[in-house]
């Protein structure tokens, strides 16, 4: 077995645009579920709206990249409001059902051939990074940067820098919000919204604000992902929602850095498994062929998620005391 390549590829998973996009989306879920108690199973929808908002603004309307990204963010705000108005008055589980359905509706609207001119249907959208000027805004001259597993060309380095900047801003925003009295109300709503209502707080407005902020984080995740890869409806499927949930629960739902670290661990593990499993299969240790071995990692993710929720629901960085009082 080629351990050098396996280790190299695994370590490369530490810092990729995908990892950053996941961290952003997981941060949005932390706001929704970890702090406000909103069961959002449609984070993939928020990502899709962000990514398509950016790409369509550039390709169809000829807007510059930064304006396109702002429109992507506005799109995820609109999606949050659209979801929240009818559902936030209902009990939490209903929000879960509605969000999962809404994310699928969004994906199918992007997939349908009715809007091929705008959405590109199953082919998705590409070329917007150069058309909108994101690529030419790259401050790094062409060349190779970094060392070892973390060697990047200037395009990837620019996406990474941009993504890390956005991530840092979002982490600061979430931290600043959650240490404040606003955050106290949000956590109170997670515990018992009637009690908070009885103390004179407009619970609906707070839940809507939380849904919007988390939705914007999800949208930004989609935008960072789109800045690196093409926008394709095949990406924003329900399983990506569950991967993000895994990353979130791995790190700790009600923490600031948990979702980020969780995403990093998730992608490092993914990189490791996608390298080692085919190797094991080729060497006859696993009784399956190479392609099957590669998909086996998703089975392992599912098992990992189950074990996590059963044995360590507060995640790696969660408060141990929370575990004691889990409902």
């Amino acid at each position, binding site marked *: 077995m080629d351990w050098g390549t396996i280790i190299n590829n695994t370590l490369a998973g530490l810092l990729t645009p995908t990892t950053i996009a996941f961290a952003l989306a997981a941060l949005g879920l932390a706001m929704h579920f970890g702090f406000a108690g909103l069961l959002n199973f449609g984070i993939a929808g928020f990502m899709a709206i962000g990514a398509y908002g950016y790409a369509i603004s550039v390709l169809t309307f000829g807007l510059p990249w930064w304006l396109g990204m702002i429109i992507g963010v506005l799109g995820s705000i609109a999606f949050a409001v659209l979801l929240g108005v009818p559902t936030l008055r209902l009990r939490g589980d209903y929000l879960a059902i509605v969000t999962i359905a809404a994310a699928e509706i969004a994906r199918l609207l992007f997939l349908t051939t009715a809007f091929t001119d705008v959405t590109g249907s199953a082919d998705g959208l590409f070329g917007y990074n150069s058309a909108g000027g994101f690529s030419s805004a790259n401050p790094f001259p062409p060349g190779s940067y970094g060392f070892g597993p973390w060697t990047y060309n200037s395009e990837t380095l620019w996406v990474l820098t941009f993504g890390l900047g956005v991530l840092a801003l979002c982490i600061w*925003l979430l931290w*600043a*919000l959650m240490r*404040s*009295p*606003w*955050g*106290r*109300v949000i*956590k*109170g709503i*997670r*515990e*018992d919204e*009637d*009690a*908070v*209502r*009885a*103390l*004179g*707080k*407009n*619970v609906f407005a707070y839940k809507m*604000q939380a849904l919007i902020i988390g939705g914007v984080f999800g949208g930004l995740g989609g935008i960072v992902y789109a800045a690196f890869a093409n926008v394709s409806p095949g990406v924003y499927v329900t399983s990506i929602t569950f991967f993000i949930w895994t990353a979130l629960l791995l790190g700790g739902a*009600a923490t600031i850095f948990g979702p980020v670290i969780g995403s990093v661990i998730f992608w490092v593990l993914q990189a490791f498994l996608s390298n080692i499993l085919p190797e094991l299969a080729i060497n006859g240790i696993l009784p399956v062929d190479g392609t099957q071995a590669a998909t086996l990692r998703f089975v392992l993710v599912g098992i990992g998620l189950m074990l996590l929720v059963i044995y360590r629901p507060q995640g790696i960085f969660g408060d141990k*005391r*929370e575990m*004691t*009082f889990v*409902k």
Partner: protein
Amino acid sequence: MSSNETPQKATGLHVGTAEPGCKKTDPMLVIDHVKKSFGGLTAVDVEHLEIPKNAITALIGPNGAGKTTLFNLLTGFDTPDTGTWSFEGKSLSGVPSFKVAQMGQVRTFQLTKALSLLTVLDNMKLGAKDQAGEGIFKSLFPRFWKKQDAEIEVKAMELLKRFKLDTKKEDFAASLSGGQRKLLEMARALMTDPVLVMLDEPMAGVNPALTQSLLEHVLNLKNDGMTVLFVEHDMHMVRHIADWVVVMAEGKVVAEGPPDTVMKEQAVIDAYLGAHQDTDLGVITGRIDTINEEESK
């Protein structure tokens, strides 16, 4: 204050005879034709009811009499089919629950709602009204709310001391006992500076040792100028602290009056006991005597 001492009762609360729907000299809550049905069942059907100001009013009645439903209607947690009601002269019909609370009418719940995974201190601080830091934009910059938050903390600590919870301030509310949670819920309600405190079964599930301090806290509310309306099954408590008693049965107000007289009324005895009229109400749920007996040993 010992348990044997009879607290100062407010008198002269009503005008004319003490009968269902009688006028009060200084009403805080006025309820008219409030009706609520769940399917075919009429849970609440109150023609007219006035709750006196600066007094402790007990709302009693057998299970299913509609006491908690009336509470929910008055605080905006549920909407009635018909009817109007006003609080200090301001109509509350259609006002959402959080606005009702902002107006100074605060409630607690029958099943205690402590915010489990918040610390005791955070539970308290959440109760304070008009916090600048609760606005989403100001919350980002501590200079807008640091000072106010410190003031709120001082107030919260004073209340926690009064309720003997100050040593628990860093603990999660989930780690408190049932009785302590009741105390926390009441203390948290007081953080909103209410004028009317509505307690839904403040004694339910509280052990006898805590009953006495809870009673004193309720009496203190009146001494601090607040009006109290509470639902309770413990007749000793009602007799001991209430200035006025409203009796409900099958959604209607069947009797009201001062505690000594109202409990002797035929309608009340019928509502509660049916055939077993000779049973002393106190024996059923009385806890105060138990404490006194234990103390005297």
